[in-house]
């Protein structure tokens, strides 16, 4: 990668503009570049260079000023929302958005935790790498239940793109042949511990719809030629991924799509360029480019292209669209349907159950596995739904031995206590529900009528709440989880739900707000992520989702994006765009 790639002022009319450099934008840029299009990636944040800009990586806790805890006043001043994310630490905080600079509001009586990563690479640096395909039933769910609108695409439409991105990204996992969780193209799976294997044997034997599998994650357990060419090497099981990984062992924009795009010499990047709005020409009904405000000095500039792909994250893309107003589109660009901003969803991670396991005291594990185990959604069609709620949930599962970290408050003084703390303690095994959230018109983002941020862009005003469906589902998950654990012989099982104090957003799987659909009257995008209203404007991130499904969504953003770019380039070649 050379520094000439970074640009600021230019008159060039690019073939394609990609707004955002996260998981989605990285893929869009790579696909355009590899098809020979002159591509400009626009990123609001600073440049983060692979390997060079990972200041928290590979340090012992004693090397941090507060032993890896974050200064409380800094948290209060700059990170009062971001701190709620489990991955927010002293070693990672520089990859999180600054809440003081990036304010948003929530409707009274509601709350939404909006976790952001505004730099080159976006949240691809911070994500947990869990990667699962949606299944056929996920695409049918809205239609079957009469909730939300029908997805205009089906599993088969994405199947080839899933395979294509998986081979490039590198997904570790085990083929299982399940209908509710289609297999990916796999690198070898991580190993289970013995209590996990015990639990797997129990579940596989006693339930027809439930299966315990190894988590599928974007880690190179055994790199292929394709990964070596990207400059990536095998995962070292440090599980410190969010600090940045110089091995390039997990998928990020920096480790994977960016080097591939740069290799083509078709990639240009405009960092520190906050997209304010899209430039729209009502005579031709085309988007001409984007209006940008400089992240640092707040001056304005413009970039132009034949097509624009919005990949600024679900809410980022929708914010740009809402703020792009014209005579034709007074309520946001490509919003003739009026549904822009509506049907916001997240996942519901608000039930868990865990307990103690006896009998494996002569075993331990070595290394830090960057994934847990997984029980795919076993309520994936109406006949399997629980009492009083629609849709279902998956469980994350894992076993570990406790250590000193949980024992600071336990009784004991002196040498015996010290020696006890240096040894691993009991085994524990837990289940963590990951539930689907229904698409509801009421769950919505809009531009705040008066409040703006420092770039003069109207703040998002978020109105999003769990409905009874989500609450009942979590009650079910807590009970079902605890029941399974007890029957498997786990001791002192406790379960809990947390939807009362965890607002939506915290699963960081926000989707919806510019949904796809067949009918331009009730959707923003067609099945190829192209806006119904303007043929050279595409949105290929999570905003396009019609339903949330239960699986981590990013793999689908990648597959959807590849499909959208392929379609777009074909349309351009055939002079339809």
């Amino acid at each position, binding site marked *: 990668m050379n520094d000439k790639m970074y640009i600021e002022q230019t008159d060039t009319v690019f073939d394609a503009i990609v707004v955002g450099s996260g998981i989605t934008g990285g893929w869009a840029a790579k696909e355009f570049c590899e098809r020979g299009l002159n591509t400009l990636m626009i990123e609001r*944040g*600073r440049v983060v260079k692979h390997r060079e800009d990972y200041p*928290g990586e*590979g340090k*012992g*806790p*004693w090397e*941090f*000023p*507060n*032993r890896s*805890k974050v*200064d*409380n*006043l*800094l948290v209060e*001043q700059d990170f009062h929302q971001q701190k709620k994310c489990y991955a927010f*630490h*002293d070693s990672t*905080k*520089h990859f999180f958005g*600054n809440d003081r600079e990036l304010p948003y509001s929530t409707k009274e009586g509601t709350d939404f935790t909006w976790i952001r990563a505004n*730099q080159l690479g976006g949240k691809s640096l911070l994500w947990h790498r869990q990667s699962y395909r949606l299944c056929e039933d996920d695409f049918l769910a809205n239609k079957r239940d009469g909730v939300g609108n029908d997805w205009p695409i089906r599993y088969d439409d994405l199947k080839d793109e899933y395979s294509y991105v998986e081979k490039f990204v590198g997904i570790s996992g085990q083929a299982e042949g399940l209908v509710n969780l289609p297999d990916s193209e796999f690198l070898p799976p*991580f190993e*289970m*511990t*013995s209590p*996990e*294997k015990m639990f797997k044997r129990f579940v596989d034997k006693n339930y027809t719809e439930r299966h315990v599998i190894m988590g599928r994650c974007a880690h190179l357990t055994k790199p292929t030629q394709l990964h070596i060419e990207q400059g990536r090497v095998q*995962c*070292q*099981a*440090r*599980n*410190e991924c969010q600090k940045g990984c110089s091995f390039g062992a997990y998928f990020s924009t920096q480790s994977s799509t960016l080097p591939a795009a740069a290799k083509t010499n078709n990639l240009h990047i405009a960092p520190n360029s906050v997209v304010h709005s899209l430039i729209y020409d009502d005579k031709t009904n085309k988007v001409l480019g984007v209006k940008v405000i400089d*992240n*640092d000095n707040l001056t304005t500039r413009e970039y132009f292209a034949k097509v624009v792909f919005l990949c600024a994250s679900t809410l980022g893309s929708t914010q740009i669209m809402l703020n792009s107003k014209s005579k034709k589109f007074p309520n946001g660009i490509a919003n003739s349907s009026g549904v822009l901003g509506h049907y916001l969803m997240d996942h519901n991670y608000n039930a868990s159950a865990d307990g103690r396991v006896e009998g494996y005291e*002569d*075993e*331990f*594990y*070595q*290394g*830090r*596995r960057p994934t847990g185990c997984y029980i795919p959604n076993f309520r994936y069609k109406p006949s399997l739904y629980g009492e009083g709620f629609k849709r279902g949930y998956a469980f994350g599962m894992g076993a570990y*031995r406790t*250590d*000193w*970290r949980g024992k*600071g*408050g336990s*009784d004991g*003084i*002196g*040498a015996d206590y*010290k020696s006890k*703390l*240096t*040894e*691993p303690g009991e085994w524990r095994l837990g289940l963590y529900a990951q539930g689907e959230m229904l698409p509801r018109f009421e769950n919505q983002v809009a531009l705040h009528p008066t409040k703006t941020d420092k770039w003069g862009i109207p703040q998002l005003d978020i109105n999003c709440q769990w409905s009874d469906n989500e609450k009942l589902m979590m009650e079910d998950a807590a009970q079902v989880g605890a029941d399974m654990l007890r029957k498997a012989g786990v001791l002192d099982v406790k379960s809990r739900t947390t939807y009362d104090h965890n607002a939506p957003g915290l699963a960081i799987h926000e989707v919806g707000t510019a949904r796809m659909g067949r009918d331009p009257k009730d959707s923003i995008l067609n099945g190829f992520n192209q806006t119904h209203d303007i043929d050279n404007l595409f949105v290929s991130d999570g905003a396009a989702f019609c339903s949330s499904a239960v699986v981590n969504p990013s793999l689908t953003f990648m597959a959807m994006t590849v499909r959208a770019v392929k379609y777009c380039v074909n349309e351009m070649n055939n002079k339809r765009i």
Partner: protein
Amino acid sequence: MEPSNNELTEPTRRDFLRKLGLVVGSSAAFTLVSGVKLNQAFAYEMTPNSAHRKGKTFTQSQMATLAKIARTVLPKTDTPSAEDVDCHGFIDHQLAVCYNKHDRRLAIEIVDDIESAAINAFSTSFAQLIDSQRHELLTKLERLDGFNHDQKSKFQLIKHLIVFGFFTSEVGATQALRYLPVPGGFTGSIPYKKGDKAWGSHAFY
């Protein structure tokens, strides 16, 4: 930018951080936030004589008491004690920058309570007691013998910090535990026998 004086008072830190926040330029802000300046300004540094100096949270005599509390909870064995790795200095710092006023007050109160209890029981300060007397006193505290629940929970705050401070120190993480920064892979089952150490290397603490 430097803090206006060496005192780590909350208003000083607040002011310093506010000014940091006003720095224009995303890369400059990154350097500042990612550590460099912040470290220099407020970093905890291990000092050999922190038990004899006024701290950021504690007075000089409270520091002396805290050092011996640390050493009593985690004494020298085949590895150094919590006092040897300056846990008291660490706690004093950590309370100042990562905890709130309320917690600081609780921590100060229990250190004072332990000192008073030593004077009541043995007519001498906690720091002057012999190890077995200190052990006895803190054991009584945990057993609520002459102490109440409130005091025990304050003590747990301190104890939590001693344990955290010790096992995140270089000695604690690498000598008292097994430290494997780059495991190279994950093995789901390795043999374990009583006495084998737990892992000191974690992704996050």
